[in-house]
């Protein structure tokens, strides 16, 4: 029996929550089964991610990172959804989805190198099933669909997940991906982090649909809308979608309603398009404090734990950025040689211009 209610909705739907902002379980039916160690691990990752985001914003301001899209506020969607997957599953991220990559196995220093525009940042280690972050909004949705087709053809019980935002759900690629996944019954999860804005454009200008989850209907796949500030709702929805995918029951579209506490990127000023009141209202739903309340009541977490993880994370980020900075700078001739398996003569000649 499905823990998650799926229906064809013709009316506005509430985002499903499991954990209230006060840290109470309000939806036993959807509660994922997790051991105490797993609960602590999830919290560890969320606090770690928040700390790393704080640091990354500073590193960006110091010019030690390149393009960086802040993630604070989205720890439940990012950490929770990855946690619900298996190592063999394939993660196809947008530019903001670096935490999923790192928790799925990409070394942090490589994420930093990617941000700095060093090609080694994208050299994903063997056995880590992730793509590099996608800049073209929506492209990764089609890649995940194709990877899922591969799993299906090879009869492997693996799942691909594509991440995008509410803005991404407007791209043509999104609809084409969903439609294919429906037609071919592919083991893929489309995970939309609806944080309310695409750069400056509010959700109300992105779509007139009652929800993004509704868009699953037309593609003939499952759609669900969940509370993206609630890590249990995220884990539950992804676990179930993954299980269905592995059983050959096809694709799921998950809309997780969340918020980014910071601006879109380091060069964006969020005060131009949203209000302080709105930001405060959302900070009251902070996924980390909500989860902490739950864990504290169970005696699994204390403020000291948070402080300890923050220190650990800071030290780790420090080490990894230093490691990234030590990687030798790319060269134009190395770049030229990375264009083809065998560098053609005309490119060999071009190296001479860069000595």
């Amino acid at each position: 029996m499905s823990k998650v209610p799926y229906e064809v909705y013709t009316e506005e739907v509430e985002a499903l929550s499991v954990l209230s902002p006060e840290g109470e379980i309000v939806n036993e039916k959807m509660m994922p089964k997790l051991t105490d160690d797993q609960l602590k691990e999830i919290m560890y990752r969320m606090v770690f991610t928040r700390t790393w985001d704080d640091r990354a914003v500073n590193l960006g301001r110091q010019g030690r990172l390149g393009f960086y899209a802040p993630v604070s506020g989205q720890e439940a969607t990012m950490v929770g959804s990855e946690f619900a997957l298996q190592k063999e599953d394939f993660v196809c991220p947008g530019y903001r989805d670096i935490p999923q990559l790192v928790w799925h196995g990409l070394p942090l220093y490589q994420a930093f190198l990617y941000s700095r525009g060093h090609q080694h940042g994208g050299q994903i280690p063997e056995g880590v099933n992730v793509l590099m972050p996608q800049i073209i909004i929506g492209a990764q949705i089609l890649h995940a669909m194709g990877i899922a087709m591969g799993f299906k053809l090879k009869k492997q019980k693996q799942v691909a997940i594509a991440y995008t935002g509410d803005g991404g759900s407007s791209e043509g690629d999104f609809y084409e991906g969903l439609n294919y996944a429906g037609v071919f019954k592919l083991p893929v999860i489309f995970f939309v982090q609806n944080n309310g804005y695409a750069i400056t454009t509010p959700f109300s200008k992105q779509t007139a649909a009652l929800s993004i989850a509704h868009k699953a209907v037309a593609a003939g796949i499952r759609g669900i809308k969940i509370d993206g500030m609630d890590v249990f709702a995220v884990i539950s929805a992804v676990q179930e979608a993954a299980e269905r995918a592995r059983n050959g029951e096809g694709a799921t579209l998950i809309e997780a309603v969340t918020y980014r506490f910071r601006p879109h990127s380091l060069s964006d000023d969020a005060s131009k398009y949203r209000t302080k009141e709105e930001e405060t209202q959302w900070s009251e739903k902070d996924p980390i404090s909500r989860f902490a309340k739950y864990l504290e009541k169970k005696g699994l977490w204390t403020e000291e734990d948070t402080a300890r993880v923050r220190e650990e994370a800071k030290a780790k980020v420090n080490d990894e950025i230093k490691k990234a900075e030590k990687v030798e700078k790319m060269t134009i001739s190395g770049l030229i040689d990375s264009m083809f398996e065998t560098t053609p003569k005309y490119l060999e000649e071009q190296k001479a211009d860069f000595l």
Partner: protein
Amino acid sequence: MAQMNMKEAIRDAMRVELERDPNVLIFGEDVGNVGGVFRVTEGLQKEFGEDRVMDTPLAESAIGGMAVGLGIQGFRPIAEIQFIGFIFEALDQMLIQAARMRYRSGGRYTSPIVFRTPFGGGVKAAELHTDSLEGLIAQTPGIKVVVPSNPYDAKGLLIASIRDNDPVFFMEHLNLYHAFRAEVPEGEYTVELGKANIVREGSDVTIISYGMTVHTATKAADELEKSGIKAEIIDLRTLNPLDIDTIVNSIKKTNRAIVVQEAQKSAGIAAEVIAQINERAILHLEAPVLRVAGPDTVYPFAQIEESWLPTPARIITAVNKVMEF
């Protein structure tokens, strides 16, 4: 006359045209409320309303296709594609639908559209934000390609583009938005499309450039002058149609030329310019025409773009080569 940077000049061109012609519309991602990621359209929605300056959902093919439909309806859309790398999502609409409309409908419909987009390297932007894709567009029949290098031209060329009855791809170099201010006349004026500009007169060698490379070439020419070489610099301003007459006339005087572009070397604008020089002026040449361009690699965002992009030093080397040939 007002002092404006290129961003302000572009905004002013749009304001002038929004005011003059009720059929002019602006739309794209984030262009309304806050005026786009570079604030180029800042204030225009406030001034002209949400029906004239519209935020669209995030979907470039729809931005391009809506422009085509509005063009058929007699509007003059200015459609912003947020960054150059995202035009690929819209290329069917830009290159197949808009650029062929006049031909396919036997002139019944046209595409009086301006597709505006920022591009250009050297600003440490993210991947796919800076590539020079002008060659790709310029090869398509039916669409004009414009690349201004300064505020005065930017305003005049943009007004001319908005008034043009065919689609124009208007490329704004990121490094030039705030680079410097210059005198820009108030109100309307146009700079004719398809006309190059001689920005510096010289007698020894012609340097053909456009956009940011005009400024790189100027730096090189200052250096070259010290060693007694007088370079003439041509700013193409429009890549399609190409003002080959200005180029040929200059070569008749200097007998030597190089072409500078930020785009990758092969099969691009520089190659086209040289082919046309060969067709029309080969007997006036004392040396082969050389290209200074990016190498034929993926554009290496951030990490080594400084050495990848044309530098004054590489221009000087190329000039010395043609001088000594």
